[in-house]
């Protein structure tokens, strides 16, 4: 017995929206980053579900790549958040707003 593909899509869409909600509301840079990770993982759910649905492996392999790149992104992101903290003594993403208009 298999679960219909549409449920997976709904699950991933829900996850994506949760992540997006976090991106839009969280002011802490780390939470922002985590929200983005949630969005990426929503995509991963889709990929794996569709790989199963279509019966080919490219989706699953691509999910591996996505995870690796997400990790790399987090690495770079943490570095940037670190210097953000050093310069602004805060990890609030709305604080650095000197450059505008």
């Amino acid at each position, binding site marked *: 017995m298999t679960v219909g593909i549409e449920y997976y899509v709904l699950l991933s869409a829900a996850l994506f929206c949760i992540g997006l909600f976090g*991106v*839009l509301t969280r002011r802490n840079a780390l939470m922002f980053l985590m929200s983005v990770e949630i969005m990426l993982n929503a995509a991963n759910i889709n990929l794996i579900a569709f790989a199963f649905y279509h019966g080919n492996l490219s989706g699953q392999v691509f999910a591996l790549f996505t995870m690796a790149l997400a990790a790399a992104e987090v690495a770079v992101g943490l570095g940037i958040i670190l210097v953000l903290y050093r310069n602004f003594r805060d990890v609030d993403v*709305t604080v*650095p*707003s*000197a450059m*505008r*208009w």
Partner: protein
Amino acid sequence: MVGAFEFAPAIALLPLAAFVVALVFGNGMPKKGAYAGILATAGSLLLSLWMLATVAGGEVYNEPLYDWAIGDEITFHFGILIDPLSALMLVIVSLVALLVHIFSLGYMNAEGETGLPRYYAELGLFTFSMLAFVLADNLLMAFMFFELVGLCSYLLIGFWFRTRSAPSAAKKAFLVTRFGDYFFLIGVVAIGATFGTLTFAGDASFVNEAQSAIDAGETFHGFGAETWVTILGLLVLGGVIGKSAQFPLHTWLPDAMEGPTTVSALIHAATMVAAGVYLVARMFGFYALSPTALAIIAFVGGFTALFAATMGVVKDDIKQVLAYSTISQYGYMMLGLGVGGYVAGVFHLMNHAFFKALLFLGAGAVIILMHHEQDMWKMGGLKDKAPVTYYTFLAGALALAGIVPFSGFWSKDEILYDAIILGLEEPIFLVAYSMGLLAVFFTGFYTFRMVFLTFHGKPRSEAARDPHPVGMNVKIPLIVLGVLALLAGVVNLAPVGKIAGMDIMFLEYWLDGQYTEGMTGLTYSEYSDTAGLDTTYIAGSQTITLLIAGALALGLALAGAIVAHVLYNVPEPVPHTENLGAAREVLRSNYYQDEVQVWIAQGLAMPTARMADRFDQSVIDGVVNGVSSVSLFGSGGMKRLQTGVVTNYAALIVLGFIALVVGLGVYGGWFV
């Protein structure tokens, strides 16, 4: 073998070189560049004479030299056309230019003027432009050099730019002629657009195209071919009227006296003013296609001749008198051309070039004598103190007045003769003729009034009692021109020839291409055939007509001279202008010509311009400024989107993305 014509471009290029040399090295050269100009114009003269001889030997030259814009429909090029007319004109122009250069040594250098390199450079450029204009083989090239001539006259009239009057006179000359040139330019474009060619001569000339269009009965823009040709011809005529100072665009010429007298000589005799009439002669074949255009030319010419002559009567400034005489004489030429007297018009152009250059240079000499005094009422009695100046000036005056046997008589007589024989066939031309005839009287009067006031009687000022001596470089040009003024008439002694049955009408044969083998299209006889003007003689006899016409003209001229003699050849002449009564003020004020033009400018043009300006200021600028302020305001709004807070960016990105999804989704029907 290199033919003479290979050197044709050099005729024009030599003065151009002189221009460059005088401009660049003038300050370091002896006589500030005068010698460069003299050498160049002398070279041009020699080459021109060679051309003349070659043309006389039976060759014509019509070659495009350089294509500078090649289109599908039409090709613009520079080229050279040397036929009897242009060869003759080349000689006249280069000769007068040479003499003016020589005279300038005495007039400008000896008087210690400043800015001489500029003067000689501009003279060189002026000569170059005119020679290139004469050489032009197509209308566009002619137009370009026509404009260059105008520019040079502007520069030279305004030579003494530190005075108040010279720059304004220069501007006036420039603007008034430019007004005419505006029509000329439209004419050039229209001719090019209509016929697809702008060349004067050859099988593919616009003259031939127009001819065949008329023959084929084509229509252009709803006009018949002949009407269209008339319109085109009149458009070009606009430029001619401006340049040749014909009514109503003549007002700039008297003011042009503000330039050095040598420049006046050049402008009046050989370059600027002559350019207009030369252009009519150059495209006479085109005008010959349209009797209407010819009639208008004749009337403009006749009227201008009379009109200007009457104004010349009351002038006090020697150069002013000469200026009005120039206008009047060019009126004669236009009259001559307008009545189909191509030879007569060109003949008068040639004679006038000589005697008017002579008169102006003579006037220049007088001005030197008088320590730069130009008012004739302060002169007098110069006859004995400056005999060379006097006798040469007198020769010029006799030629101008048209007294036999001086050159002016023969050409003016021929013009009037051509006018009367046409007028007898078509009485309307008698009006033009009578205006021309009447002008003869006034010409005789003002010419001798000028001579008597200047040279006869007692000196009326300190300067006149103790004149400044003049040198050889002044006298030589005067003598050369004096001889020419006396003798130039022999090239076409038409009345004598016709009465006596002798073949001595050399100029007519010359212009008819009889010395030139295989020349077609540009000849007098072909023009006459094209124009197809019928003529009638008085009592059916050519001889009687000739004699009556000649006698009338000579008689009126002598009458004018005699009146002048009676009134002014007295030791203490007085201005008899009061006797004119109310007419005096009208004449003095040049028939209020300037006032009318000023009124046109201020009363009509200024309000129009002001309205346009208001429109420009309010509507156009308003729109433009509005656009720019809206842009800048929009710019302010655009950049406010960039709040600097990254969360807002994320929100805006999501919103924008949702807008795209909804938009494309609705459009593409995903939700159905």
